[in-house]
Protein backbone atom coordinates (compact mmCIF):
# COMPACT_ATOMS: atom_id res chain seq x y z
CA UNK A 1 0.00 0.00 0.00
CA UNK A 2 1.39 3.38 -0.94
CA UNK A 3 2.32 5.81 1.80
CA UNK A 4 -0.38 8.26 0.62
CA UNK A 5 -3.08 5.62 0.92
CA UNK A 6 -1.73 4.37 4.23
CA UNK A 7 -1.52 7.87 5.68
CA UNK A 8 -4.63 9.53 4.33
CA UNK A 9 -7.19 6.79 3.71
CA UNK A 10 -7.91 6.17 7.43
CA UNK A 11 -8.29 9.92 7.94
CA UNK A 12 -10.70 10.31 5.02
CA UNK A 13 -12.77 7.28 6.06
CA UNK A 14 -12.88 8.46 9.70
CA UNK A 15 -13.86 12.00 8.70
CA UNK A 16 -16.70 10.93 6.38
CA UNK A 17 -18.12 8.25 8.68
CA UNK A 18 -17.66 10.43 11.77
CA UNK A 19 -19.64 13.26 10.19
CA UNK A 20 -22.49 10.93 9.25
CA UNK A 21 -22.65 9.52 12.77
CA UNK A 22 -22.66 13.00 14.30
CA UNK A 23 -25.23 14.38 11.85
CA UNK A 24 -27.62 11.52 12.54
CA UNK A 25 -28.17 12.87 16.06
CA UNK A 26 -29.49 16.39 15.38
CA UNK A 27 -30.95 15.69 11.92
CA UNK A 28 -34.04 13.52 11.83
CA UNK A 29 -33.95 12.55 8.17
CA UNK A 30 -34.32 8.95 6.93
CA UNK A 31 -31.44 9.35 4.45
CA UNK A 32 -28.95 10.26 7.18
CA UNK A 33 -30.31 8.10 10.00
CA UNK A 34 -30.45 5.18 7.55
CA UNK A 35 -26.75 5.57 6.72
CA UNK A 36 -25.89 5.82 10.39
CA UNK A 37 -27.90 2.64 11.15
CA UNK A 38 -26.10 0.84 8.31
CA UNK A 39 -22.76 1.95 9.71
CA UNK A 40 -23.77 0.43 13.04
CA UNK A 41 -24.36 -2.88 11.23
CA UNK A 42 -20.95 -2.62 9.56
CA UNK A 43 -19.38 -2.37 13.00
CA UNK A 44 -21.09 -5.66 13.95
CA UNK A 45 -19.92 -7.34 10.73
CA UNK A 46 -16.35 -6.13 11.20
CA UNK A 47 -16.42 -7.22 14.84
CA UNK A 48 -17.55 -10.70 13.74
CA UNK A 49 -14.62 -10.95 11.34
CA UNK A 50 -12.37 -9.68 14.14
CA UNK A 51 -13.67 -12.46 16.37
CA UNK A 52 -12.80 -15.06 13.73
CA UNK A 53 -9.32 -13.64 13.22
CA UNK A 54 -8.89 -13.50 17.00
CA UNK A 55 -9.75 -17.20 17.34
CA UNK A 56 -7.26 -18.15 14.60
CA UNK A 57 -4.63 -15.95 16.23
CA UNK A 58 -5.21 -17.61 19.59
CA UNK A 59 -4.70 -21.05 18.06
CA UNK A 60 -1.47 -19.90 16.42
CA UNK A 61 0.00 -18.17 19.48
CA UNK A 62 -1.03 -20.71 22.10
CA UNK A 63 -0.56 -23.68 19.80
CA UNK A 64 3.02 -22.51 19.33
CA UNK A 65 3.50 -22.23 23.12
CA UNK A 66 2.13 -25.77 23.62
CA UNK A 67 4.21 -27.25 20.80
CA UNK A 68 7.41 -25.71 22.22
CA UNK A 69 6.31 -26.43 25.83
CA UNK A 70 7.28 -22.90 26.81
CA UNK A 71 7.98 -22.63 30.52
CA UNK A 72 5.07 -21.14 32.50
CA UNK A 73 2.90 -20.84 29.39
CA UNK A 74 2.06 -24.20 27.92
CA UNK A 75 -0.26 -25.44 30.69
CA UNK A 76 -2.39 -22.25 30.80
CA UNK A 77 -2.39 -22.37 26.98
CA UNK A 78 -3.84 -25.90 27.05
CA UNK A 79 -6.53 -24.72 29.51
CA UNK A 80 -7.33 -21.73 27.30
CA UNK A 81 -7.56 -23.63 24.02
CA UNK A 82 -9.42 -26.49 25.74
CA UNK A 83 -12.02 -24.03 27.08
CA UNK A 84 -12.32 -22.39 23.67
CA UNK A 85 -12.90 -25.72 21.92
CA UNK A 86 -15.29 -27.01 24.59
CA UNK A 87 -17.40 -23.82 24.58
CA UNK A 88 -17.53 -23.67 20.78
CA UNK A 89 -18.46 -27.36 20.41
CA UNK A 90 -21.11 -27.16 23.14
CA UNK A 91 -22.55 -23.97 21.67
CA UNK A 92 -22.70 -25.39 18.16
CA UNK A 93 -24.08 -28.81 19.10
CA UNK A 94 -26.50 -28.03 21.93
CA UNK A 95 -27.26 -24.35 21.27
CA UNK A 96 -26.44 -21.32 23.37
CA UNK A 97 -29.71 -21.64 25.34
CA UNK A 98 -29.03 -25.24 26.43
CA UNK A 99 -28.47 -26.22 30.07
CA UNK A 100 -25.00 -27.60 29.33
CA UNK A 101 -23.84 -24.37 27.71
CA UNK A 102 -25.39 -21.98 30.25
CA UNK A 103 -24.19 -24.14 33.19
CA UNK A 104 -20.65 -24.00 31.87
CA UNK A 105 -20.86 -20.22 31.76
CA UNK A 106 -22.64 -19.79 35.08
CA UNK A 107 -20.40 -22.21 36.99
CA UNK A 108 -17.11 -20.84 35.70
CA UNK A 109 -17.54 -17.21 34.67
CA UNK A 110 -20.53 -16.45 36.90
CA UNK A 111 -18.83 -17.77 40.03
CA UNK A 112 -15.64 -15.89 39.18
CA UNK A 113 -17.56 -12.66 38.70
CA UNK A 114 -19.33 -13.05 42.03
CA UNK A 115 -16.01 -13.69 43.77
CA UNK A 116 -14.58 -10.58 42.19
CA UNK A 117 -17.55 -8.46 43.16
CA UNK A 118 -17.31 -9.65 46.78
CA UNK A 119 -13.60 -8.91 46.81
CA UNK A 120 -14.39 -5.40 45.60
CA UNK A 121 -16.25 -4.74 48.85
CA UNK A 122 -13.06 -5.28 50.88
CA UNK A 123 -10.96 -3.26 48.47
CA UNK A 124 -13.42 -0.37 48.56
CA UNK A 125 -13.40 -0.41 52.33
CA UNK A 126 -9.62 -0.23 52.56
CA UNK A 127 -9.47 2.50 49.88
CA UNK A 128 -12.16 4.55 51.64
CA UNK A 129 -10.36 4.14 54.96
CA UNK A 130 -7.16 5.59 53.48
CA UNK A 131 -8.88 8.39 51.58
CA UNK A 132 -11.18 9.64 54.30
CA UNK A 133 -8.64 10.28 57.01
CA UNK A 134 -8.94 13.94 57.94
CA UNK A 135 -5.25 14.83 57.62
CA UNK A 136 -5.84 17.95 55.57
CA UNK A 137 -8.75 20.38 55.51
CA UNK A 138 -9.75 19.10 52.05
CA UNK A 139 -9.83 15.55 53.49
CA UNK A 140 -11.88 16.88 56.41
CA UNK A 141 -14.47 18.43 54.09
CA UNK A 142 -14.67 15.20 52.09
CA UNK A 143 -15.08 13.16 55.26
CA UNK A 144 -17.73 15.54 56.63
CA UNK A 145 -19.69 15.53 53.36
CA UNK A 146 -19.53 11.76 53.13
CA UNK A 147 -20.76 11.31 56.71
CA UNK A 148 -23.66 13.71 56.10
CA UNK A 149 -24.74 11.91 52.92
CA UNK A 150 -24.39 8.51 54.61
CA UNK A 151 -26.52 9.62 57.56
CA UNK A 152 -29.08 11.00 55.09
CA UNK A 153 -29.24 7.82 53.04
CA UNK A 154 -29.31 5.27 55.90
CA UNK A 155 -31.25 7.35 57.41
CA UNK A 156 -29.91 7.78 60.94
CA UNK A 157 -30.12 11.59 60.95
CA UNK A 158 -33.91 11.39 60.55
CA UNK A 159 -34.04 9.54 63.86
CA UNK A 160 -31.66 11.67 65.93
CA UNK A 161 -31.64 15.16 64.46
CA UNK A 162 -34.07 15.77 61.56
CA UNK A 163 -32.86 19.33 60.67
CA UNK A 164 -29.55 17.77 59.58
CA UNK A 165 -31.43 16.01 56.78
CA UNK A 166 -32.82 19.32 55.54
CA UNK A 167 -29.28 20.66 55.29
CA UNK A 168 -27.97 17.50 53.57
CA UNK A 169 -30.86 17.57 51.08
CA UNK A 170 -30.03 21.20 50.29
CA UNK A 171 -26.35 20.20 49.85
CA UNK A 172 -27.33 17.45 47.41
CA UNK A 173 -29.91 19.50 45.50
CA UNK A 174 -28.03 22.78 45.18
CA UNK A 175 -24.20 22.79 45.45
CA UNK A 176 -23.65 19.11 44.56
CA UNK A 177 -26.14 19.11 41.66
CA UNK A 178 -24.77 22.44 40.39
CA UNK A 179 -21.19 21.19 40.56
CA UNK A 180 -22.19 17.93 38.91
CA UNK A 181 -23.89 19.75 36.02
CA UNK A 182 -20.92 22.07 35.56
CA UNK A 183 -18.56 19.09 35.36
CA UNK A 184 -20.93 17.32 32.93
CA UNK A 185 -21.09 20.38 30.64
CA UNK A 186 -17.32 20.87 30.69
CA UNK A 187 -16.83 17.14 30.09
CA UNK A 188 -19.23 17.37 27.14
CA UNK A 189 -17.22 20.21 25.60
CA UNK A 190 -14.05 18.17 26.10
CA UNK A 191 -15.63 15.20 24.29
CA UNK A 192 -16.73 17.40 21.37
CA UNK A 193 -13.23 18.86 21.08
CA UNK A 194 -11.68 15.39 21.20
CA UNK A 195 -14.05 14.16 18.47
CA UNK A 196 -13.22 17.19 16.30
CA UNK A 197 -9.51 16.58 16.83
CA UNK A 198 -9.80 12.97 15.67
CA UNK A 199 -12.25 13.54 12.81
CA UNK A 200 -10.40 16.53 11.37
CA UNK A 201 -7.00 14.83 11.64
CA UNK A 202 -5.53 17.37 14.11
CA UNK A 203 -4.74 14.39 16.36
CA UNK A 204 -3.43 11.32 14.53
CA UNK A 205 -2.21 9.26 17.47
CA UNK A 206 -5.07 6.78 17.07
CA UNK A 207 -3.42 5.72 13.79
CA UNK A 208 -0.32 4.74 15.71
CA UNK A 209 1.77 7.85 15.19
CA UNK A 210 2.00 11.52 16.18
CA UNK A 211 2.64 13.76 13.20
Amino acid sequence: MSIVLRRYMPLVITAILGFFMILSYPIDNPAITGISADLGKWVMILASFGLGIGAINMFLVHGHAIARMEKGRWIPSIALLGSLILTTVLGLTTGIESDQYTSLYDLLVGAGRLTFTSLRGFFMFSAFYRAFRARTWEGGIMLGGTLLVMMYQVPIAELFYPPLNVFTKWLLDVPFAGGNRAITIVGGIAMIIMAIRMISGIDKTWMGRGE
Partner: protein
Amino acid sequence: MFFEERGALFFFMIFVFVVAYGISEWAKRGKTWELRKLAPIDAILEGIGRAVELGRPVHFSAGVDRAGPGDPDRGHAYPMLRYVAMNCAERDCRLITTVGKGDVYAVIDQIVKEAAIDAGKPEWYRPDDVRFLGEDQFVYAAGVMGIISREHVATNLMFGYHRGALINMLEAGRMAGALQIGGMARMTGELGFMALGCDYFLVLEELVAASAYISGESGQIGTVATQDYLKFLLIAIILIGSLLYTVGIDTLYKILAW
Protein backbone atom coordinates in the same frame (compact mmCIF):
# COMPACT_ATOMS: atom_id res chain seq x y z
CA MET B 1 -39.68 18.03 11.56
CA PHE B 2 -36.19 18.02 10.14
CA PHE B 3 -34.34 18.79 13.38
CA GLU B 4 -36.83 17.54 16.02
CA GLU B 5 -35.84 20.20 18.61
CA ARG B 6 -32.14 19.72 17.92
CA GLY B 7 -31.68 22.55 15.44
CA ALA B 8 -29.78 24.74 17.89
CA LEU B 9 -27.51 21.79 18.71
CA PHE B 10 -26.83 21.23 15.01
CA PHE B 11 -25.77 24.83 14.44
CA PHE B 12 -23.82 24.85 17.70
CA MET B 13 -21.88 21.78 16.54
CA ILE B 14 -21.07 23.45 13.22
CA PHE B 15 -20.04 26.59 15.10
CA VAL B 16 -17.79 24.60 17.46
CA PHE B 17 -16.19 22.76 14.55
CA VAL B 18 -15.47 25.98 12.64
CA VAL B 19 -14.11 27.72 15.75
CA ALA B 20 -11.96 24.72 16.78
CA TYR B 21 -10.53 24.30 13.30
CA GLY B 22 -10.00 28.04 12.91
CA ILE B 23 -8.19 28.40 16.24
CA SER B 24 -6.14 25.31 15.52
CA GLU B 25 -5.04 26.83 12.19
CA TRP B 26 -4.32 30.12 13.97
CA ALA B 27 -2.10 28.22 16.41
CA LYS B 28 -0.27 26.54 13.52
CA ARG B 29 0.48 30.01 12.09
CA GLY B 30 2.24 31.07 15.27
CA LYS B 31 -0.30 32.05 17.90
CA THR B 32 0.73 30.58 21.25
CA TRP B 33 -1.04 29.93 24.54
CA GLU B 34 0.60 28.93 27.77
CA LEU B 35 -0.57 25.64 29.23
CA ARG B 36 -0.31 25.32 32.98
CA LYS B 37 1.85 22.48 34.25
CA LEU B 38 -0.02 19.26 34.88
CA ALA B 39 1.38 17.42 37.92
CA PRO B 40 0.21 13.96 36.77
CA ILE B 41 2.12 14.31 33.49
CA ASP B 42 5.32 15.18 35.35
CA ALA B 43 4.58 12.27 37.69
CA ILE B 44 4.46 9.90 34.70
CA LEU B 45 8.09 10.75 33.92
CA GLU B 46 8.99 10.34 37.60
CA GLY B 47 7.21 6.98 37.56
CA ILE B 48 9.19 5.79 34.53
CA GLY B 49 12.41 6.98 36.19
CA ARG B 50 11.43 5.11 39.33
CA ALA B 51 10.80 1.93 37.33
CA VAL B 52 14.22 2.24 35.66
CA GLU B 53 15.94 2.68 39.04
CA LEU B 54 14.12 -0.28 40.55
CA GLY B 55 14.58 -2.42 37.44
CA ARG B 56 10.88 -3.13 37.36
CA PRO B 57 8.32 -2.64 34.55
CA VAL B 58 5.66 -0.01 33.96
CA HIS B 59 2.09 -1.17 33.35
CA PHE B 60 -0.26 0.75 31.08
CA SER B 61 -3.96 -0.03 30.83
CA ALA B 62 -5.88 1.61 27.99
CA GLY B 63 -9.29 0.74 29.40
CA VAL B 64 -11.95 -1.85 28.80
CA ASP B 65 -14.27 -0.12 26.37
CA ARG B 66 -14.68 -0.69 22.65
CA ALA B 67 -13.45 1.68 20.00
CA GLY B 68 -16.53 3.51 18.90
CA PRO B 69 -18.68 6.57 19.06
CA GLY B 70 -19.55 5.96 22.70
CA ASP B 71 -15.98 5.95 23.89
CA PRO B 72 -14.27 9.30 24.32
CA ASP B 73 -11.67 7.77 26.64
CA ARG B 74 -9.82 6.00 23.86
CA GLY B 75 -9.05 9.35 22.27
CA HIS B 76 -7.25 10.41 25.44
CA ALA B 77 -5.61 7.10 26.22
CA TYR B 78 -3.86 6.74 22.82
CA PRO B 79 -1.72 9.93 22.99
CA MET B 80 -0.90 9.07 26.59
CA LEU B 81 0.20 5.56 25.60
CA ARG B 82 2.38 6.92 22.82
CA TYR B 83 4.00 9.36 25.25
CA VAL B 84 4.63 6.67 27.86
CA ALA B 85 5.92 4.17 25.26
CA MET B 86 8.32 6.71 23.76
CA ASN B 87 9.70 7.65 27.17
CA CYS B 88 10.02 4.02 28.22
CA ALA B 89 11.78 3.16 24.95
CA GLU B 90 14.23 6.06 25.36
CA ARG B 91 15.12 4.93 28.89
CA ASP B 92 15.05 1.19 28.13
CA CYS B 93 12.27 0.66 30.63
CA ARG B 94 10.01 -2.35 30.09
CA LEU B 95 6.39 -1.40 29.40
CA ILE B 96 3.57 -3.92 29.73
CA THR B 97 0.44 -2.73 27.96
CA THR B 98 -2.81 -4.55 28.62
CA VAL B 99 -5.85 -4.46 26.37
CA GLY B 100 -9.42 -5.20 27.42
CA LYS B 101 -11.14 -5.24 24.03
CA GLY B 102 -10.10 -7.26 21.01
CA ASP B 103 -11.10 -4.65 18.42
CA VAL B 104 -8.56 -2.10 19.68
CA TYR B 105 -5.65 -4.51 20.14
CA ALA B 106 -4.16 -3.84 16.71
CA VAL B 107 -4.29 -0.05 17.22
CA ILE B 108 -2.65 -0.25 20.64
CA ASP B 109 0.02 -2.65 19.40
CA GLN B 110 0.74 -0.30 16.49
CA ILE B 111 1.02 2.73 18.80
CA VAL B 112 3.62 0.96 20.98
CA LYS B 113 5.52 -0.30 17.93
CA GLU B 114 5.64 3.10 16.21
CA ALA B 115 6.58 4.83 19.46
CA ALA B 116 9.60 2.53 19.70
CA ILE B 117 10.57 3.34 16.10
CA ASP B 118 10.11 7.09 16.68
CA ALA B 119 12.21 6.89 19.84
CA GLY B 120 14.99 5.36 17.70
CA LYS B 121 14.82 1.98 19.45
CA PRO B 122 12.73 -0.44 17.36
CA GLU B 123 14.37 -3.38 19.17
CA TRP B 124 12.74 -2.21 22.44
CA TYR B 125 9.30 -3.24 21.18
CA ARG B 126 8.27 -6.70 22.37
CA PRO B 127 5.00 -8.09 20.96
CA ASP B 128 4.60 -10.23 24.11
CA ASP B 129 4.33 -7.09 26.25
CA VAL B 130 1.17 -5.89 24.53
CA ARG B 131 -1.35 -8.31 25.99
CA PHE B 132 -5.02 -8.88 25.34
CA LEU B 133 -6.45 -10.18 28.60
CA GLY B 134 -10.13 -10.69 27.89
CA GLU B 135 -13.33 -8.87 27.02
CA ASP B 136 -15.04 -9.32 30.38
CA GLN B 137 -14.12 -6.57 32.85
CA PHE B 138 -13.53 -9.07 35.67
CA VAL B 139 -11.41 -11.35 33.52
CA TYR B 140 -9.40 -8.32 32.44
CA ALA B 141 -9.03 -7.10 36.02
CA ALA B 142 -7.88 -10.55 37.19
CA GLY B 143 -5.24 -10.56 34.44
CA VAL B 144 -4.04 -7.06 35.36
CA MET B 145 -3.89 -7.91 39.07
CA GLY B 146 -1.85 -11.00 38.23
CA ILE B 147 0.59 -9.01 36.08
CA ILE B 148 0.98 -6.27 38.70
CA SER B 149 1.83 -8.76 41.46
CA ARG B 150 3.91 -11.24 39.39
CA GLU B 151 5.96 -8.66 37.52
CA HIS B 152 6.32 -6.33 40.55
CA VAL B 153 5.17 -3.35 38.55
CA ALA B 154 6.80 -0.10 39.72
CA THR B 155 4.37 2.30 38.06
CA ASN B 156 0.77 1.57 37.21
CA LEU B 157 -0.88 3.82 34.62
CA MET B 158 -4.65 3.45 34.22
CA PHE B 159 -6.03 5.56 31.40
CA GLY B 160 -9.22 5.11 29.43
CA TYR B 161 -12.58 3.91 30.64
CA HIS B 162 -12.69 1.31 33.41
CA ARG B 163 -15.65 -0.24 35.12
CA GLY B 164 -16.26 -1.33 38.71
CA ALA B 165 -13.31 -3.74 38.80
CA LEU B 166 -11.02 -0.70 38.62
CA ILE B 167 -10.78 -0.55 42.41
CA ASN B 168 -9.50 -4.17 42.47
CA MET B 169 -6.71 -3.31 40.04
CA LEU B 170 -5.78 -0.13 41.89
CA GLU B 171 -5.63 -1.97 45.22
CA ALA B 172 -3.43 -4.63 43.63
CA GLY B 173 -1.15 -1.80 42.50
CA ARG B 174 -1.11 -0.32 45.98
CA MET B 175 -0.19 -3.69 47.49
CA ALA B 176 2.67 -3.98 44.99
CA GLY B 177 3.88 -0.53 46.10
CA ALA B 178 3.39 0.95 42.63
CA LEU B 179 3.08 4.65 41.88
CA GLN B 180 -0.41 4.95 40.39
CA ILE B 181 -1.53 7.55 37.88
CA GLY B 182 -4.88 7.48 36.11
CA GLY B 183 -7.38 9.41 34.11
CA MET B 184 -10.95 9.12 32.93
CA ALA B 185 -13.00 11.29 30.60
CA ARG B 186 -16.45 10.25 31.74
CA MET B 187 -18.49 11.35 34.73
CA THR B 188 -19.20 7.92 36.20
CA GLY B 189 -19.00 6.30 39.61
CA GLU B 190 -15.65 4.80 38.67
CA LEU B 191 -14.17 8.28 38.63
CA GLY B 192 -14.45 8.12 42.42
CA PHE B 193 -12.42 4.89 42.46
CA MET B 194 -9.79 6.65 40.39
CA ALA B 195 -9.64 9.46 42.94
CA LEU B 196 -9.43 6.96 45.80
CA GLY B 197 -6.78 4.68 44.39
CA CYS B 198 -4.47 6.88 42.33
CA ASP B 199 -1.60 9.01 43.56
CA TYR B 200 -2.32 11.40 40.67
CA PHE B 201 -5.25 11.48 38.31
CA LEU B 202 -6.59 13.49 35.43
CA VAL B 203 -10.27 14.13 35.09
CA LEU B 204 -12.51 14.95 32.12
CA GLU B 205 -11.23 18.04 30.26
CA GLU B 206 -7.79 17.77 31.88
CA LEU B 207 -7.26 14.69 29.72
CA VAL B 208 -7.91 16.66 26.54
CA ALA B 209 -5.46 19.29 27.75
CA ALA B 210 -2.98 16.60 28.80
CA SER B 211 -2.90 14.93 25.40
CA ALA B 212 -2.24 18.32 23.78
CA TYR B 213 0.34 19.14 26.47
CA ILE B 214 2.37 16.01 25.83
CA SER B 215 2.11 16.22 22.05
CA GLY B 216 3.34 19.84 22.08
CA GLU B 217 1.64 20.30 18.68
CA SER B 218 0.36 23.81 18.12
CA GLY B 219 -2.84 22.55 16.46
CA GLN B 220 -3.78 20.46 19.47
CA ILE B 221 -2.94 23.24 21.91
CA GLY B 222 -5.25 25.44 19.85
CA THR B 223 -8.13 23.05 20.54
CA VAL B 224 -7.49 23.39 24.29
CA ALA B 225 -7.79 27.17 23.89
CA THR B 226 -11.04 26.59 21.96
CA GLN B 227 -12.32 24.63 24.91
CA ASP B 228 -11.70 27.58 27.24
CA TYR B 229 -13.31 30.08 24.86
CA LEU B 230 -16.35 27.81 24.59
CA LYS B 231 -16.59 27.62 28.36
CA PHE B 232 -16.70 31.43 28.58
CA LEU B 233 -19.35 31.49 25.85
CA LEU B 234 -21.50 28.91 27.65
CA ILE B 235 -21.15 30.70 30.99
CA ALA B 236 -22.34 33.90 29.26
CA ILE B 237 -25.29 32.08 27.65
CA ILE B 238 -26.27 30.50 31.00
CA LEU B 239 -26.08 33.84 32.86
CA ILE B 240 -27.88 35.87 30.18
CA GLY B 241 -30.46 33.13 29.66
CA SER B 242 -31.18 32.83 33.40
CA LEU B 243 -31.49 36.61 33.72
CA LEU B 244 -33.79 36.97 30.70
CA TYR B 245 -35.99 34.05 31.75
CA THR B 246 -36.27 35.50 35.27
CA VAL B 247 -37.60 38.79 33.90
CA GLY B 248 -40.04 36.95 31.62
CA ILE B 249 -38.21 37.01 28.27
CA ASP B 250 -38.01 33.46 26.89
CA THR B 251 -36.53 34.24 23.44
CA LEU B 252 -33.15 32.67 24.21
CA TYR B 253 -34.85 29.60 25.68
CA LYS B 254 -36.95 29.21 22.52
CA ILE B 255 -33.89 29.56 20.30
CA LEU B 256 -32.01 26.89 22.28
CA ALA B 257 -35.03 24.57 22.29
CA TRP B 258 -35.60 24.92 18.52
